[in-house]
């Protein structure tokens, strides 16, 4: 077997991960070839240098955090448990809107006509105000744009 083939087998040889037959071949070759045996030495030395790397230790806080997380995740396993607080919080805007709707339907017939007109007027005014405010926003836009370009 030539040196090139032996060199390819060296990493496996150094890990004792060659078939017996090949291992014997490499062993014999190394005893006679100085080039391959210095290559083997170089490979082994480089490999051993890996022990220069630092080893780190787990922290005690990590363990405490681990158990905290398992507990909170066990609680998450039952997210369907009914809670009045959660229900009210989530649905309160809808309920308020529904109450207002029912209220307005009920009292519509009792409102005098002049009041109706005034309400419509007020709404129109509010809408105009809103448009004005939005116009302000529109005029602000180029300024904002310029600034963002400069950054």
């Amino acid at each position, binding site marked *: 077997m030539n040196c090139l083939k032996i060199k390819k087998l060296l990493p496996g040889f150094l*890990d004792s991960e060659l078939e017996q037959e090949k291992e014997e071949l490499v062993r014999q070759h190394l005893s006679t070839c100085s080039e391959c045996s210095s290559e083997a030495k170089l490979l082994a030395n480089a*490999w051993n240098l890996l022990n220069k790397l630092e080893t*780190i230790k787990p922290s005690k806080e990590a*363990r405490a955090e681990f158990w905290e*997380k398992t507990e909170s995740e066990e609680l998450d396993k039952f997210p369907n448990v009914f809670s009045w607080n959660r229900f009210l919080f989530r649905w309160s805007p809808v309920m308020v809107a529904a109450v207002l709707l029912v209220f307005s339907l009920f009292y519509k017939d009792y409102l005098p006509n002049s009041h109706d007109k005034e309400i419509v007027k007020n709404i129109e005014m509010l809408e105009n105000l809103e448009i004005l405010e939005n116009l302000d926003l529109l005029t602000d836009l180029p300024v904002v744009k310029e600034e963002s370009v400069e950054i």
Partner: protein
Amino acid sequence: MMQLSDIQIIEKVINGDKSAFNELMDRHEKSILNFTYRLLSSRTEAEDITQEVFLRAYKNIETFESRAKFSTWLFKIARNLCLNKLRHTFRFPTFSIDKPIRGSEHDFQRQVENKKQVSPASSLLKKELQDTVKAALGSLPKNQKAAVVLRRYEDMSYKEISTVMGCSVSAVRSMLNRAKQTLKNRLKHYAQK
């Protein structure tokens, strides 16, 4: 008292003795932490991933098949999480090239500088060697790096590495062949001595 095997402890956990899982962590936490640390080269990220590994193992403990070693299973989870993490950081780097590096890395640099001022020359050489070794390992493609770490620090056989990596033994062999050549070339200067 005779020490229980990992499998026996797992049975205890499954039967309701949750705190027995502490013993499994005592046995394997350090290995997993250092494995992830060497793959990710960030202590904080390694700690996060290690915790995730054990959370997943704990949650899925009933699915563990006792034909395999518990540690192999842990390394398998750890390796997958690390590769995901590396893929993610590659696409979304956490620091900007324009901005100066802040936080831990900067602190680390400062620590090194301070050390230089007070340490004797031998310690400096040691640090230089350590950095070179770290860089050599860091230069390997991530799968080769994982194989090297499992072989070098966990003393795993090629067969066991192939189980962790989910590939064939011959794939492990060629990964380690290439990795060892690269390490040799990069560390030649120190390896010749």
